[in-house]
């Protein structure tokens, strides 16, 4: 079975899921023990969420030896996908339609991660066009960024501060990305952003 506590393993699994028919992006959320807590995918129009959910279960088991309850799989689709769903078919699991904002954020965040992962300079990362476009999305991006921080701490702090004008990072947490993320998640909870 794949050890999902390793960062590379998560990326492998997400990459595999993203190659499934109809899936645009895939994200894993892990619990405190590092095991898969939830699987979130953004899907294209054209396939019923139930079929996508089954494909995900099969892929996780056949490729990585991971069994997961379908109720942990959340399939989000664009409005176009909702309209395309066959009449009479009800979505399974926690299916929630998402709009262009989520899809745009997912696309930009993927581009930013893949094009800046080799950089150390916070400034270089922050001026990347995809990152700046996310900042330009304003407060609509904040819940999505915080969700990213829940999934994996990364250098989203510049964007959060630029959008909200706040910096909740405690001095003793400076530079410690897990603690920095938690400080932001706490503020997000307090403000009702997540």
């Amino acid at each position, binding site marked *: 079975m794949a050890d999902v506590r390793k960062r590379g393993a998560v990326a492998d699994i997400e990459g595999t899921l993203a190659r499934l028919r109809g899936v645009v992006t895939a994200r894993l959320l892990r619990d405190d023990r590092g095991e898969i807590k939830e699987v979130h995918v953004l899907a294209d129009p054209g396939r019923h969420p139930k079929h996508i959910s089954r494909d995900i279960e099969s892929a996780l088991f056949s490729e990585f030896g991971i069994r997961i309850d379908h109720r942990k799989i959340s399939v989000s689709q664009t409005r176009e996908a909702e309209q395309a769903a066959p009449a009479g078919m009800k979505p399974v699991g926690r299916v929630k339609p998402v709009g262009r904002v989520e899809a745009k954020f997912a696309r930009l965040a993927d581009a930013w991660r893949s094009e800046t992962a*080799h950089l*150390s300079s916070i*400034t270089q990362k922050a001026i990347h066009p995809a990152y700046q476009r996310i900042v330009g999305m304003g407060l609509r991006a904040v819940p999505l960024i915080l969700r990213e921080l829940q999934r994996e701490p990364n250098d989203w*702090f510049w964007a959060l501060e630029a959008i909200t004008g706040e910096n909740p990072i405690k001095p003793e947490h400076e*530079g410690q990305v897990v603690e920095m993320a938690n400080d932001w998640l706490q503020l997000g909870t307090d403000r009702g952003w997540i």
Partner: protein
Amino acid sequence: MATDDLERRFPALVRSRYEVTSSEDVRYNCIAWAAGDVTRKWWPRRGYYWPKAPDDESLEEFTRAFARLGYEECVGVELEEGFGKVAIYAGPLGPAHMARQLPDGSWTSKCGDWEDISHELRAIEGEAYGQIVRIMRRRQTRGRTY
């Protein structure tokens, strides 16, 4: 990160000797690694760790920070007995990367969110990290962390 990705970002590695020496870890960055700290990210910006209150993100700011750790500017990149060295790489936006010299004279870098590598000093110069603009050294002291 696959070595393909590493070599795509730093093409000169292909023609040089290098080795991946760690697993991926997002908790520290190249500046922290150069300083010997694997617990946090260093950058002269609010929210990140910096050994002094940062004035800006200039080469002089990086130089001052490492001077506080006991480093002084020097010229040669060769191994000097009794000294440890760090190199600052910079591009149009200013400092972008740092590397630390290993006891065998090769250099070690943490490449962004990716792994640590040992490498030849100039093999990671280029679009991402810019050019080497400053070498600093400090006398080695047993038991010193950073």
